[in-house]
């Protein structure tokens, strides 16, 4: 039973991928993707109940392990995955109508998205660092073709940069994993790369070797999480990928990569004390924040703007993780979910906007509120959710990270991080209000029939926003899970 539940988050998307391989993309199969994502979410909820009752579980001959932290990540993957796949049918149909995609492209898109979901689920379920590494590298390979889907110059360029930079980063992580394995061999118990075993054997791991290994692992997985210094792929890839894929890459993949950093940090803290990983993460976080905030100011493309905002939010998550402690970790996890929801809604809405207006330049879009009120409302509230206004959940998580930061004696760092976040938030609001407000252009050709938001896409955007607001008011049934996941992420001092 438990094995079945643990296989479902990986197995269902694989089945979905097979279905697209066999039957192609057509109205009858368009909703299989959302079905598989919903199944993944249901399995995650089931696993949450099991883990809550009887603690961590191991399955598939020790290759897979689930605890509160991985269950929480599964919930994030399932929720944002469901939003993105539910918005896909109308997105793909519009692309086909516009002649930018064929039925074959749509089938390949859906197949790859399913494989992408399966790879992310296996990353968080992996019991050892080797499996985690393989799954994260697999996400790069799968999404490379999704980024380059449109085959324009810009899309091919983005895909090339994406694969070269991410593979290089992830190769560094592999070197780190090999070195950690080397350190683990020279301990009495030889835990290999098992995540739990490494922590148990922490006091016997060689600190000097572990230090090199951890630095490689954090920089390597940090590349996939969009943190400086190897972040350059992110704005290109996220702006060129099709909207549902951008939503998944930005809303979930970055967090899954950061989950890998959290697991590495547990080993690092146990061997080296909290200082080493904290310093590393703080430097990367502040560099990323400064970079994202400064590049946001002069941004002229709204998809790139959202991409830089993802760098900013992941940097904030890294700040929270560097602070450590139960409050900060709970805030970090809540921030991952809140960011996934808000960014998912915004990328899906932005995709809709670029389909109807045919451009992604901020300057060329005016008065969306007058033409498409529902879409404009969703984008507006999405940005408010993203910059952390109450009642949305990012408000609660940012407050948590700030409070924990000041309490932990990292006041200066936290203050700098918060002010950079405030700058980024203000810039986002200015850019987006320019696009949404104003009067529509008068004159011939301006009064074409205003395009309508497809019902399914509208429902998805509203659902995402509602969920984000509800989470901000109360974590509800998630409270217990969030607490136990945070305790695991803090580790044993």
């Amino acid at each position, binding site marked *: 039973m438990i094995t079945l539940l643990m296989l479902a988050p990986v197995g269902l998307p694989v089945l979905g991928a097979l279905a697209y391989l066999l039957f192609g993309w057509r109205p009858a199969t368009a909703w299989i993707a959302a079905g598989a994502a919903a199944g993944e979410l249901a399995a995650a909820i089931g696993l949450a109940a099991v883990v809550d009752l009887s603690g961590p579980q191991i399955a598939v001959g020790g290759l897979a392990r689930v605890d509160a932290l991985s269950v929480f990540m599964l919930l994030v993957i399932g929720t944002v995955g469901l939003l993105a796949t539910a918005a896909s049918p109308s997105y793909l149909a519009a692309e086909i109508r516009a002649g930018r995609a064929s039925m074959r492209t749509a089938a390949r898109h859906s197949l790859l998205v399913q494989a992408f979901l399966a790879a992310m689920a296996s990353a968080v379920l992996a019991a050892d660092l080797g499996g985690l590494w393989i799954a994260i590298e697999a996400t790069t390979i799968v999404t490379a073709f999704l980024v*380059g889907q449109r085959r324009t*110059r810009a899309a091919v360029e983005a895909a090339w940069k994406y694969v070269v930079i991410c593979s290089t980063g992830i190769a560094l992580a592999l070197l780190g994993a090999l070195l950690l*394995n*080397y350190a683990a061999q020279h301990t009495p118990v030889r835990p290999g790369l098992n995540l739990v075993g490494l922590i148990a054997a922490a006091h016997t791991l060689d600190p000097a070797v572990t230090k090199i290994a951890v630095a490689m692992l954090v920089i390597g997985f940090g590349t996939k999480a969009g943190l400086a210094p190897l972040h350059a792929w992110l704005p290109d890839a996220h702006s060129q990928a099709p909207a549902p894929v951008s939503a998944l890459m930005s809303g979930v993949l970055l967090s899954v990569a950061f989950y890998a950093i959290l697991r590495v940090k547990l080993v690092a803290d146990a061997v080296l004390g909290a200082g080493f990983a904290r310093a590393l993460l703080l430097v990367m976080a502040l560099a990323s924040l400064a970079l994202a905030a400064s590049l946001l100011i002069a941004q002229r493309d709204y998809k790139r703007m959202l991409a830089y905002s993802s760098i900013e939010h992941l940097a904030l998550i890294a700040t929270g993780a560097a602070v450590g402690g139960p409050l900060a970790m709970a805030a970090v996890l809540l921030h991952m979910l809140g960011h996934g929801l808000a960014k998912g809604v915004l990328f899906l809405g932005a995709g809709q906007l670029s389909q109807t207006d045919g451009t992604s330049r901020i300057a060329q879009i005016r008065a969306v509120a007058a033409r498409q009120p529902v879409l404009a409302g969703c984008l507006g509230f999405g940005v408010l959710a993203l910059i952390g206004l109450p009642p949305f959940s990012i408000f609660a998580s940012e407050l948590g990270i700030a409070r924990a930061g000041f309490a932990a004696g990292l006041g200066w760092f936290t203050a700098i991080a918060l002010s950079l976040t405030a700058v980024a938030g203000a810039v986002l609001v200015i850019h987006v209000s320019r696009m949404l407000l104003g009067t529509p252009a008068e004159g011939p050709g301006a009064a074409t029939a205003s395009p309508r938001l497809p019902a399914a896409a509208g429902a998805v955007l509203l659902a995402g926003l509602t969920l984000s607001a509800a989470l901000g008011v109360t974590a509800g049934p998630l409270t217990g899970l969030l607490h136990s996941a945070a305790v695991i992420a803090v580790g044993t001092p």
Partner: protein
Amino acid sequence: MSETTYVQLLYLACGGLLLTSVLMLWRRELAVLIRVFAVQGFALAVIAGLAALHHGGIELGAVAVGILVLRVGILPWLLRRAVAAVGPASRETRPLVNVAASLLVAAVLTLLAYAVSRPLVELAPAAATSAIPIGVAVVLIGFFVLITRRRAPSQLVGFLLMDNGITAVGLLTTAGVALTVELGVALDVLLAVLVLQILTGRMRETFGDTDVAELRELHD
């Protein structure tokens, strides 16, 4: 095999690894680079084979055979196809750093590798582990090739050089990453190269050439 022969052969193979990396900085014709890359793959397979003989592990023997097939057979073949697709102008014409400076940088990177990997050697001093710095040096040189070459196939060679270095570190530190992990890693590398190869083809379709300096659509 006696202990001395083992050590001598091991060091010979590691020397080959470093020498081929430096050769890749020196030569610019892509066809030559690929041949050098195959030779390096062979050196890597020798290291794995020696480790298998020395530790007597059947798994390591399988890894050695796998490396031979992948790095002497499949990957050079894929690269040759990528170069054939690019056409006759398959020469790295304008690297960002010239040859003499690259060779100097390689020397500095090797020294850096020795400095950085001191703790790695000290953890378990032995014939194999004392060669770890060479693996690290190959990783650094590969990274250097990756960031200073402009043509897509030569960047690919840089990436593979880095990967060879990482595999070497893995083999020299080894008594055993599990075979499943080893297999997964090999598969991922193969897939990444396939993806990059397909993208090279698409770049040629859309840009007409695979000079990465042409990639100027996306910037801030």
